[in-house]
């Protein structure tokens, strides 16, 4: 079936450090969206990407459609970055499949 695998599944960071999350797709994704799910359960939109790179503050995301992956880089991690990060892959029929998630805990 359609699969979107995220790695790592869980991650612990100290404040001020950097990290990268990755999504690998087994579907032919045309666009990708990254979300942060906060402890209340709300899904917050981080990026919506066609192939290429976008940057917003301490976050940067790249989508490589030819090699079927996307990455999310977090620079200078802060406590409020804690939560679960999901990527979602869009097919050319507008079907949107979510990844398995990366649970991030940032500590002082």
């Amino acid at each position, binding site marked *: 079936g359609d699969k979107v695998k995220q790695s790592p599944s869980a991650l612990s960071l100290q404040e001020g450090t950097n990290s990268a999350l990755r999504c690998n797709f087994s579907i032919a994704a045309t*666009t990708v*969206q990254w*979300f942060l799910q906060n402890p209340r*359960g*709300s*899904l917050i*939109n981080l990026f*919506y990407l066609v192939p290429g790179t976008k940057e917003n503050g301490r976050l940067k995301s790249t989508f490589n459609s030819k090699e079927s992956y996307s990455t999310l880089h977090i620079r200078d991690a802060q406590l409020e970055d804690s939560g679960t990060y*999901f990527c*979602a892959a*869009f097919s050319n*029929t*507008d*079907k*949107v*499949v*979510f*990844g*398995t*998630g990366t649970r991030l805990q940032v500590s002082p």
Partner: protein
Amino acid sequence: EAGVTQSPRYAVLQEGQAVSFWCDPISGHDTLYWYQQPRDQGPQLLVYFRDEAVIDNSQLPSDRFSAVRPKGTNSTLKIQSAKQGDTATYLCASSFRGLQLYFGEGSKLTVL
């Protein structure tokens, strides 16, 4: 501009009872999605619509789950004869022409 609105926010049922979840998408959004998110898992697509038409409902457990969007605006997801395994948050999202998704706050279902 109003976001995606879902109700109820919470529902607690005994096994065998029925429940309906309602979603009001962002005005003008033609595509509407329902996802099921069990605790500690990612959202899993149940069904999605473009306007009033079902595009893909292959992941909807059809014997007990149904979803409609009769006028291409609001949508209802109904679970008949709920089971404990249906315990999850039910998320609605909308988009315009397949562009980025906007999610509601979800409806959290507990089946005892």
